[in-house]
């Protein structure tokens, strides 16, 4: 099957057209929901200032357009959103888009590290467990998977901090880089990597167990299929069977899960980033809720939705590339 560029573009365009209504739906719904919440931005600001007179509050409301009916506010917000203007964050006193871009890199780094760790280790362990099904190795791996699955990431984070930072002193307790370290070049990279080890491990273990369990189940299933028997009857050895026939087919559902779960992993970063004080989108999300910074919260939802849509598109393309039965159009 040829994989020229044009079909991908046509497919991308169609997916984009499908995604736009979904994102509009999300933004409209979130906007209206947030309007239901008691108190608005001005209340929060005034609360921070320790009170202000009614006239001043009214003037502020008018300035931000909060005195208008909800529908007008919604229309204005959506019109600005169409130009990727996410409004102003009163907490950070910067445009929301600037605040988000500051944080995006950290989160993407954490996601990439966690997912690649979870995916590679997950499929490797899953495949090994399936090949040695019902043996001691399998039991060990499967039990480990169950425990990873049952351990909440925040508890795991605390255990890591206690062990590796407090007791052993090997790893930094939080942040993305050493404050006042002023590392440059390679040292900077190593410094950031050291800061990411624990968050990555804490975030990835639960997903690692998902991939592992799914991989184990699909490998067992595929191993029973007719074409594996055919390959065996041809005289293929176990290793060859595993690589060319079983893994090749068993990977597909795992890739589907990877795409489906991306948004959940992104959600999981909220807790991990908060614990390890990583300046990412997740930490920003929990702070925005506490500080009632609604524009920023909306911005996070918007950005996350776009990231999820893009990642889902990429996994679909990857899937189609790997599955000969599917042609993009």
């Amino acid at each position, binding site marked *: 099957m040829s994989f020229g560029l044009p079909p991908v573009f046509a497919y991308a365009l169609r997916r984009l057209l499908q995604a736009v209504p979904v994102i509009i739906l999300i933004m409209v719904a979130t906007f209206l929901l947030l309007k239901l919440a008691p108190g608005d931005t001005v209340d929060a600001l005034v609360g921070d200032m320790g009170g202000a007179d009614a006239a001043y509050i009214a003037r502020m409301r008018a300035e931000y357009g909060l005195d208008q009916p909800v529908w007008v506010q919604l229309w204005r917000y959506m019109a600005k959103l169409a130009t990727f203007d996410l409004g102003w964050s009163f907490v950070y006193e910067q445009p929301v888009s600037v605040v988000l871009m500051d944080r995006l890199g950290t989160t993407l780094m954490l996601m990439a590290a966690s997912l690649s760790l979870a995916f590679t280790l997950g499929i490797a362990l899953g495949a090994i467990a399936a090949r040695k099904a019902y043996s001691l190795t399998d039991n060990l791996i499967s039990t480990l998977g169950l425990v990873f699955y049952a351990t909440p990431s925040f508890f795991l984070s605390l255990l890591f901090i206690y062990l590796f930072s407090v007791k052993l002193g090997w790893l930094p307790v939080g942040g993305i880089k050493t404050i006042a370290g002023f590392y440059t070049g390679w040292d900077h990279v190593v410094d950031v990597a050291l800061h990411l080890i624990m968050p990555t491990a804490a975030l990835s273990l639960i997903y690692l167990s998902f991939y592992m369990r799914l991989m184990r189940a699909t490998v067992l299933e595929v191993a029973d299929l007719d*074409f594996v*028997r*055919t390959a065996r009857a041809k*005289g*293929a050895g176990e290793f060859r069977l595993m690589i*060319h026939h079983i893994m*090749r087919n068993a990977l597909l559902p795992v890739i589907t899960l990877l795409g489906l779960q991306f948004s959940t992993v992104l959600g999981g970063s909220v807790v991990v980033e908060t614990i390890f004080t990583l300046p990412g989108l997740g930490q920003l999300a929990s702070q925005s809720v506490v500080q009632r910074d609604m524009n920023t919260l909306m911005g996070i939802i918007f950005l996350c939705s776009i990231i999820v849509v893009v990642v889902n598109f990429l996994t679909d393309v990857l899937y189609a590339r790997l599955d*000969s039965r599917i*042609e993009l159009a």
Partner: protein
Amino acid sequence: MTETTPVLQISGLKIALPKGSDRPYALEGLDLEINPGEIVCLVGESGSGKSLSAGAIMRLLPEPHVHVAEGSIKFRGEEIVAKSETEMRQIRGRDIAMIFQEPMTALNPQKTVGWQLDEVLRLHTKMSRKERRARAIEMLERVHLPDPPSAYNAYPHQISGGQRQRVMIAMALSLSPKLIIADEPTTALDVTTQLQILKLIRELQEQEGAGVLFITHDFGVVAEIADKVAVLRKGILVEQGPASEVLNNPQHAYTRALIGAVPALTPPPLKVPSTAPVVLKGTGLKKTFAARGGMLSGKRKAVTAVKDLTFELRQGETLGVVGESGSGKTTVSRIVTRLLECDAGKVEMDGKDLLALSPREMREMRKHIQMVFQDPMASLNPRKRVVDLIAQGPIVHGADPAKARADARRLLELVELSPASASRFPHEFSGGQRQRIGIARALALEPKVIVADEPVSALDVSVQAQVLKLLADLRDRLNLSLLFVTHDLRVAAQLCDRIIVMQKGEIVESGPTAEVFANPQHAYTQKLLSSIPGRDWTPPVIRTDAA
């Protein structure tokens, strides 16, 4: 090495099943010999252990649960049972090759046909990439695939079922093995394709002089291809001998029963007068399916399943709708019962057009036209008791539940099942019994017409004969009118008064079964009839108590 050394010599083979199975041994004391150039058919119904014997020869049994307990398997004089796994790996694919039943699933969906052919050569020869490619393409030519170079680059899903089976054969034969094991290789194929594949196996086997172990359940196929026959029943070899002997003069009672169950190709004389009233009439039926192209593509291709179909079913008559897969015969059964909405045409019953009725009116009319489905497992709701399954129709149509259940028990007796089984669930019955329950359910509403969609195709021959007999009895006793959809011409010959032959959504020929069989007019009908396996063999008339 002499001419007389058999390729395969099995003696006293015993295969043990895991504890808790319905019997301790899948195979008990199999003796079998295959000489070079000989095709030996191993015949048996499901559960006879015939496929496991193939697994034992290849040493591909799901060990340790299922394993060879006793006996010897000698391949060209060498004991297979004693070989190491490494030795076996060299033998598999090179000296002993295998062809499987399901061409759909027997090839890896993610690798090209060429890659999979190449794999055998790569595993067993030191040929260069170029030589291997040339050899693979030569093999694709030998199995008569059109355009071998492009077939080489195709993925399995891009070629048809028959072509896939040809690829399997090419793969099996590419190293000129001495023994070929074919496990039901044509069961999943249409009759015309089946004949071509059987001829191909015969042709190549003669060229190579290989021995073939051909596993099948179909005596028609046996008559077509076998030199020798061995009959298995529940793991025990009951009869063995030259094909002509076993087919025409079977000795063992089980063989006699099996052969007696094969429907003869001589249709009964027409007994319903053409003056009987028409109970169901279809006019100008059309159905087109909008099929999606790929999973992710939005392209829709239209497939015409039925175009302009007209038929009449008379009171007390059985009308057969015959065709191969893709002929639209199943669509017909779904259109007339309105399980599928039709694009155009009329289905008239009692002067009403069923297709024009409102959903409510149609629900009311359904009691007059009932259906017996193909898959006896899938057509009964697994979570309902048998009595409720049968009584459901009358209850929906307003009958008193207690009376409907009492009637259901009587219906069970009518289909020869014990009324004691009324409170069981469907999975506690065998396939044939489930089909009887399906028939009882259809009869519960006392319909004017019964549409039967391949009702016996999922059943073993001996069970098939019993269910067919029941259907014929009930039809005669209750004066039922049957619309009988089938791919099996033998079954059609036995049961149908008249038949319609369909090809690609169109009727190519219709008429009294006896006339169509004796003197087919259309080329396609002729081809179908001449493709029936074992058409030149008339099963001997055998009277047994069972069949």
